[in-house]
Structures are given as C-alpha cells and as structure tokens.
C-alpha cells in the first residue's frame, strides 16, 4: 500500500519538476519564469523527498527529509527574489502582457 502511495507522490513530484523546466522555456519574461521555477520546482523537489521518506519509514530518513524540505522552502524564494530584483534593476523588459507596474511609478 505505502509503496503505491510513495510511487504516486514520486511521479507527481517529477511531473512538477518537469513543468518547472518547461516553464523556464515557455514563459515570456524573467519574472514569470521565476514563478514557474520557485513554485513548481520547490513543490516538485519536496514531493520527491517526501516520497523517499514515505517509502523507507525510517526516523533518520524522515528527519533528513523534513530538514531538506525546510531548507528548500527557506532558500528557493530568497534566490528567486534576488534574481527578480536584479533583473528588474537592470531594466530587462517585462512581457507585453504586464499591465500594472507600481514599482516604476515610484
């Protein structure tokens, strides 16, 4: 039973990672790309680690999985924020679908 569950979680996680990778290619500008990478990416990697923990049912592995997920959730948005800020500051054009920019008015 738990094998099936962790298998499903593993496949879901890999799908999210795939979507994150596709997002980098498909999205129109840097900022929207960062959306795809931080969200789908951290959820995907988190699910893969979780599947591992579910499968092994071992306290050591479980604790390691929890700390990996915590570190992932702490660091991914910081990196995304810095990349987004750097790209905005260096005036990389936003996609033409962007319709409000309150940061620009300031």
């Amino acid at each position: 039973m738990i094998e099936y569950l962790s298998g499903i979680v593993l496949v879901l996680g890999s799908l999210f990672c795939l979507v994150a990778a596709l997002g980098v290619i498909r999205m129109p500008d840097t900022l929207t790309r960062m959306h795809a990478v931080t969200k789908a990416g951290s959820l995907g990697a988190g699910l893969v680690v979780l599947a591992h923990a579910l499968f092994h049912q071992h306290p050591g592995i479980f604790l390691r999985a929890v700390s990996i997920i915590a570190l992932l959730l702490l660091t991914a948005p910081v990196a995304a924020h810095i990349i987004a800020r750097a790209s905005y500051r260096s005036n990389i054009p936003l996609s033409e679908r962007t319709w409000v920019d309150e940061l620009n008015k300031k």
Partner: protein
Amino acid sequence: MPLFMLNLFFAAVFTLLLGSTSISVFLVGFVLGYGVLWVSSPLYPDTRYFTKLPKTLNLTVFFLKELAISSLRVSWDVITPRHINRPGIIGVPLTARTNLEIFLVANLVSLTPGTLSVDLSEDKKTLFVHVMFLEDIDKTRADIKNGLERRILEVMR
C-alpha cells in the same frame, strides 16, 4: 518556548517508554504531552504557547494549501498553449516592522499563488510584488494583507 521543549521532552519519554523508534509514536506522544500541559495550563499564567502552537499550525496548513493551488495554476499556464497570465507589479503596504517579519512575509509571498516579491521600498514600508494572474489590484492587495501577513503576524507577535 520552554513549554515547547517540555512538550518535546514528554514526547521523547513516551517514545522511549514504548521502546519504539517510529515517528508516529513520537507524534502521538507530542499530542498527549500537549494535552497534559493544556490541562495544567493555569500553572503557567504568562505563556502564549497554547495560542501560538495552533496559530503556527494554521499558518503551516494555509501555506501548504496555497503552495499546492499556486503550483497547479502556474503549471496550467505552462502546459496549455495559450497564456492565461496577466502579470503586473503592485505595491503592498506592510504592517510587518522587524526584519524577521518582513523576511517571512516576503519569503512566503514568493511561495504562494502566482506572487513573487521583487523589491522592498527604501523605508521598508512597501513590498513590491509581481503577480502572475492579476485581475483586481485592490483585491489581490487585500488578499496578501489579510491572508498571509495577518497570519504571520499572529504567530510572530
């Protein structure tokens, strides 16, 4: 937080007494220990442990739910050939004051529905957020303030 330590200690003792090494037994021990502490809560008049723990859990559940929803939405936009995104950058006035509070708000904003924190104003009072599916500026702003920021401040203060 000493009560939290005590609670962890109860859970550890419970796990050892049962001679088990599984995480689920530890969690059961934690819940039982929380119950014991709660029953004896008149002994600790000025602790905020009993309001803080449920609020932390509330924030965690809220956050995980938002993370799942946002990932699905972003994934949908990536997979389908037509783009449904309407990105925009809006300024959200912050109630959070200390660096840690602002860090948490900015970090969680980056991880929730199609929002990504881009910049913080010089006076640390406005967080500029890039929103991927922006339909109604005031509604989105209120969502961030009442949903995420309020919950974070409840835990932090």
